[in-house]
């Protein structure tokens, strides 16, 4: 039987000292059951100032989403007292995540040689725009520059316009996923070797990993492909928006013709092959647009899918939040973002043995669990904690 209360990484202790970037790494480890403490400077992490914002409180929804399910503690890593306490914390940690960029004051606290000498079982996961070595290691970046140099952008958008960025924080979330995967791989390796290690995760390489097969194809054919809008993954207008139909194989095409009543203008053997349809794309698109013109996008998708044709509806954000499928699946749940303000957030990426595995609690306030962490786990006395608070270390 499944044990929904036990998640696979239960028992692991992760210190997430991310700066601004790639907080999804710790989120995924927390989703899978690790205890993750979001360690911030006493003034709060810079990611608390990232858009989008909640309309009433002004709280960062990026922070709320990518730190849900973590605990919150504060520490000034630039002070000697803070660094000493950091070592006491790391003596109890399995994983440390950091995402400083070149020039950050805290970077010195994350020196891999020193940390691994002091804590040989620690897995240190560093996430940075270009990685921590190589000729561009000191370069700085943003979501936009990471997506651009990662090699996914040149094929996105209309041919007559500049390439266009994916929504959200695609580049940093991609690095978060690779960071989490590398971290669990290192923990697996530690089961055998008894040793931790340093992981150097690159945002550029993380995006490049999601750029389909453009690089291997280029290495053989010398062809790069071009920006052609939706290209062969056509988007057809309909009564209330658009649908995407990907009619790749012959039986998709025949099922579509059957639904359309086998119209004479499409009764052309040349159209039975994908190449033939691409050559005659205008004719096909015109006929489909006319057929879909009086039909609604969700109705088209449901009927197409019933007939075995891969069509999906182009939904606006509000239509994703509340459609029959996401409501039935529990794709979203309410989480507090500030006192009195609650928004709908995704419930997570995974189901394990049929149970959703995702954030169970809202993101922490800065230092919300300081007492629990520093007193109960690290062993400070209440008086020591209060003194460190007064000094601005915690």
């Amino acid at each position, binding site marked *: 039987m499944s044990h929904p209360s036990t998640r696979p990484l239960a028992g692991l202790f992760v210190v997430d000292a991310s700066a601004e970037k790639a907080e999804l790494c710790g989120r995924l480890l927390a989703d899978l059951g690790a205890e993750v403490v979001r360690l911030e400077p006493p003034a709060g992490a810079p990611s608390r100032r990232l858009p989008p914002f909640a309309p009433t409180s002004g709280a960062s929804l990026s922070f709320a989403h990518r730190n849900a399910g973590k605990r919150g503690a504060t520490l000034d890593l630039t002070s000697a007292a803070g660094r000493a306490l950091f070592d006491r914390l790391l003596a109890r940690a399995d994983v440390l995540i950091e995402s400083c960029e070149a020039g950050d004051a805290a970077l010195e606290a994350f020196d891999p040689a020193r940390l691994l000498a002091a804590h040989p079982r620690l897995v240190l996961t560093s996430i940075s725009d270009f990685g921590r070595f190589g000729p561009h290691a000191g370069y700085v970046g943003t979501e936009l520059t990471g997506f651009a140099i990662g090699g996914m952008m040149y094929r996105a958008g209309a041919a007559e316009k500049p390439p266009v960025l994916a929504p959200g924080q695609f580049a940093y979330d991609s690095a978060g996923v690779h960071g989490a995967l590398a971290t669990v791989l290192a923990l697996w390796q530690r089961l055998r070797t008894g040793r931790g290690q340093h992981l150097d995760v690159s945002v550029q390489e*993380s995006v490049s990993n999601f750029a389909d097969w453009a690089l291997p194809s280029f290495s053989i054919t010398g062809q790069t492909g071009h920006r052609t809008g939706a290209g062969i*993954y056509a988007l057809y207008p309909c009564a209330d928006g658009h649908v995407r139909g990907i009619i790749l194989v012959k039986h998709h095409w025949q099922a579509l013709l059957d639904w359309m009543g086998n119209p004479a203008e499409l009764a052309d053997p040349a159209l039975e092959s994908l190449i033939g349809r691409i050559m005659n794309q205008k004719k096909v698109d015109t006929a489909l647009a006319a057929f879909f013109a009086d039909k609604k996008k969700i109705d088209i998708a449901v009927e197409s899918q019933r007939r075995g044709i891969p069509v999906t509806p182009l939904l606006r954000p509000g239509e994703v939040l509340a459609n029959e*499928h996401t409501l039935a699946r529990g794709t979203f749940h309410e989480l507090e973002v500030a006192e009195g303000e609650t928004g709908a957030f995704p419930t997570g990426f995974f189901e394990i043995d049929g149970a959703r595995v995702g954030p169970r609690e809202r993101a922490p306030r800065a230092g919300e669990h300081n007492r629990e962490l520093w007193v109960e786990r690290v062993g400070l006395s209440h008086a020591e904690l209060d003194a460190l608070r007064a000094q601005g270390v915690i």
Partner: protein
Amino acid sequence: MAAPFAGLRVLDFGVGAVGVEVGRFFAEYGADVIKVESSTAPDFIRTITPDGINPAFASSSRSKRALGVNLKDARGLALVRRLARLADVLIENNGAGVMERLGLGYEALRADNPRLVYFSSNLTGSRGPWSGWIGYGPSTHPVSGMQHLWNYPEDEARPAGSTNIYPDHFVGRLGALAALAGLYQREQTGTGYRAEAAQFEGAIGFLGDLFARESLAPGTVHPRGNASERGAPWGVYPCKGEDEWCALSVRSDAEWRALVAELGSPDWAARPELATAPGRIAARAELDRHLSAWTRELAPHEVMHRLQARGVPAAALHHPAHELADPHLRARGYLQSFDQPPLGKLTAEGPAFRASDLPAPIQFKAPLLGEHSREVCRDWLGLSDGELDRLFADGVLEEPARPAS
């Protein structure tokens, strides 16, 4: 250094990219990953070219062995069920219910092998009124809200589109993570589990803050293009050459001053209201015009190096030719090359991380359909040559036709 997954056995029923990429992760770190196909149900990425080998397929199925087996034959199915008894991980991304109908669903297999870790993924998940929908990576863009938002702000009524097959590779990493976490837990519990990731929810998971914003302030989330509310200038600018671009972001007043210095402190940049972010955001279009005039005369990497030397976030917009020539990626050992007959030397993406205590990822050519049917059945099940010959003769097992000598 021993490969982390040495001794692990993986059955890979992946098609397209999602499951296939999960299998590749385990193969590169030392698991014996068996790609299970048949001539009537090959991985469709094979079928892009008639000979069954092309760069996309070679990249995603490298470092694996291949078994050709007819699952519609009772002996073929029984053979795969015997393999599943020995497997540590099974990966599949067929349509919802397909594996169950074949008799290879998790419940059926775990009765004989409670240690099995089983990963499934499909477009819309296995529950809910739209479960069982079919499609490809780009099919998730519309249904997850991503298509609507991945656009220029002025074109909201007209979707822009891209030919990226995201989120296939991304969900492949999620699957690797879920399967690996299952193995990690198995070290303590002794039992495996079934993990599932619906592809449309993967895409939604990258956009969670935008959905929260939409729920709190309905109608306020729109395509943002390349601009950011964090500052200006912030965007993609044309460079010298055909379809060459650079991206740059100014996050602070200090970065603005550094940019202006690199431009040679032109008069247009000296207006006092441009010294702070609100003034620059208000003048975004004007700044973009001036910057484009500057970048148009420069190669994308020249813009990157010159601005980075002053601490301003800037990058060349890469296509594969740039990646292949990137001295940084080369110095980091990111690019992985191997010989893939008949294509020649193929270069593909390596892991997105370097590790201080892991061996290099294992790279060898992707297999022909059924290329290792004989040796897999010998290695895993100890079948004799006589048994094997019979299974091949009866069409239960498949292997590539021998080249005419």
